[in-house]
């Protein structure tokens, strides 16, 4: 054997088991002698890897070089692959090695092949993919319409036979979407109210129109900011939860199990969520508006010396009651839309985790966008309601 095998005493020594290649002349031939442990574990430190790749660079694959692998202590598939790739995927003509190492190298030699190429999409493919967007939008619109139609039928069914409705699920969802959302919506509302009051008070003082802060805060918070703020928060909080919940049921085949039992998804899954959000959403929106008004009231007291008692007495005069009804009905529509969009994307999840993540993201983004769109629609449609000319 051309080199001494490491003595047992330093067998544990890291340096002695590092994979190495040495070049030496023996019996008139060039020999490349590999030793050490050629395993993924031994090569997984950067020093070991750099030294072995340097060693290999010094002994390029040549016809007249003899290879001696017998001093190798251990050879696994990674080490064998390294050698095989170094030999440019062909056996060197002169090779000495132990039989168990040969078995590993044989396997590597047998199975090494070219990676299958991913065919890059051609221009026509890209065009087709782009052109498919049109029909896809039609499909989405059709599916969403179908969901709304199914919901209408299910609500009709519930009215005909209320005792068969999924009331327990409904009350659970109501608690989840409504009661547990109260702290976060109150906090956000309070802070927005304070910020808004401080900002407007600066401007109003310049014109000496301090008392108008009640009108500005009352109208903007009750009519617009409260409902939209609450809807955005609930879309992020409950819309994503609905999608994730239904999506996980798809991944774990629970939806299929329900269908096999003859339990319709629309009646049992979609309807309770939609109804729960339709009821919870106006309440949360009112709660958010109240918190925001409270914050604004405190800020007005601090910055403009407008006392809370004046604020409260001026509020009903500044904001007609119809604004509250408008805000509540708007919120109910937001709730229904958020729940429907959440359910839609949940049902569309394919049985893999990646699709679940994408579905949840699209659900939140879509529902926030739709909420703001519908809010704009309400603003245009009801521009004559609740505003004193």
């Amino acid at each position: 054997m051309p080199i001494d095998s490491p003595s047992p005493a330093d067998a544990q020594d890291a340096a002695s088991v590092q994979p190495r290649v040495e070049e030496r002349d023996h019996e008139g031939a060039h020999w490349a002698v590999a030793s050490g442990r050629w395993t993924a574990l031994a090569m997984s430190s950067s020093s070991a890897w750099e030294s072995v790749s340097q060693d290999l660079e010094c002994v390029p694959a040549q016809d007249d070089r003899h290879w001696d692998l017998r001093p190798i202590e251990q050879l696994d598939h990674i080490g064998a692959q390294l050698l095989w790739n170094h030999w440019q995927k062909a056996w060197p003509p002169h090779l000495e090695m132990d039989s168990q190492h040969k078995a590993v190298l044989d396997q590597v030699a047998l199975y090494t092949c070219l990676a299958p190429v991913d065919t890059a999409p051609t221009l026509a493919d890209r065009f087709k993919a782009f052109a498919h967007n049109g029909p896809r939008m039609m499909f989405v619109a059709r599916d969403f319409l179908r969901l709304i139609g199914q919901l209408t039928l299910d609500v009709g069914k519930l009215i005909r036979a209320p005792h068969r409705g999924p009331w327990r699920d409904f009350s659970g969802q109501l608690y989840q979407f409504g009661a547990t959302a109260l702290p976060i919506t109150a906090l956000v509302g309070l802070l927005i109210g304070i910020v808004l009051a401080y900002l407007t008070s600066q401007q109003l003082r310049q014109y000496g129109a301090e008392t108008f802060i009640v009108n500005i805060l009352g109208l903007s918070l009750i009519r617009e900011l409260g409902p939209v703020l609450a809807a955005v928060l609930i879309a992020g909080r409950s819309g994503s939860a609905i999608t994730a919940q239904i999506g996980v049921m798809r991944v774990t085949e629970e939806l299929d199990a329900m269908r096999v039992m003859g339990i319709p998804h629309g009646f049992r899954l979609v309807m309770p969520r939609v109804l729960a959000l339709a009821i919870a959403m106006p309440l949360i929106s009112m709660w958010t508006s109240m918190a925001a008004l409270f914050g604004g009231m405190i800020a007005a007291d601090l910055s403009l010396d407008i006392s809370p008692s004046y604020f409260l007495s001026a509020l009903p005069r500044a904001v007609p009651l119809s604004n509250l009804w408008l805000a509540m009905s708007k919120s109910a529509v937001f709730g229904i839309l958020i729940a429907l969009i959440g359910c839609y994307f949940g049902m569309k999840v394919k049985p893999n985790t990646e699709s679940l993540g994408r579905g949840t993201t699209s659900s939140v983004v879509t529902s926030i966008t739709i909420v703001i769109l519908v809010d704009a629609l309400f603003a245009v449609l009801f521009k004559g309601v609740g505003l004193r000319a």
Partner: protein
Amino acid sequence: MTDTPHSDATSVVEIRKLWTVFKSPDGDQVVHRDLDLTIMRGEVLSLVGGSGTGKTVLLRQILGLEHPTKGQVSVLGRPPAQLSAMGAANVGMLFQHGALFSAFSVLDNIAFPLRELKLLPDDLIRDAALVKLQMVGLTPQQATKSPADLSGGMIKRVALARALIMDPPLLLLDEPTAGLDPESADGFCDLLRGLHRELGLTVVMVTHDLDTLFDLSTRIAVLADQKVIVAGTARDVIAYPHPFIHEYFLGGRGQRAMEALHEGSAPVGVAGRPSGSQAPSTER
């Protein structure tokens, strides 16, 4: 790996006086009580036991994913938590449902542990992953598929290839043949046997499939009464008097599987351990 100088004597996994207690409001549930188990290098040990006897929990404790309430687990002479931090080079695990990363293609799944080293060149990693892919009986054409497009048997194979990518000395399998058709299960057994022979792996396996059990195991450890009641070759275990063993091995299904064992092609003692030479070691 069996050819390291002192291969036969060393133990890979040592479990001493292990207690596992699950705390719950209505009383603590003791899963393991003073459990002792030693797994030697190069053997294929099967863990057998009824449902809820803590077989998977034991595997997870060997992996360092869960901590025992009391007692010691050491893997390759170290605590398991240290070991799994050192990555896939030491321990490979085949999870029951594959646990493939669904965001990656098959090839990227297999190559993932090597890529994360950020050390080896990309073409070497790709070639190594392709070799492992074919070793577990898949074709290179399947390398670009995503895990969602694979059948159950293929998922198991890819998961095995991923567990083996760095040729770890210790391989843990959780129900490797559950959910496979008989032919795939046989193929899987052949594959594992071949890998065990070529790489000299130590394999710890949880299985309920008696065919796989008799086909692959060099030793069987039976979990009952919150401990390992007996660990030994198939014959020794069956001879041990305990109601669970009687029901498990000598029931209808057991009888059929035993017939295969008695037909002479019994691989008991594959790793050079002559069957019957070892008395059933009652570990407690």
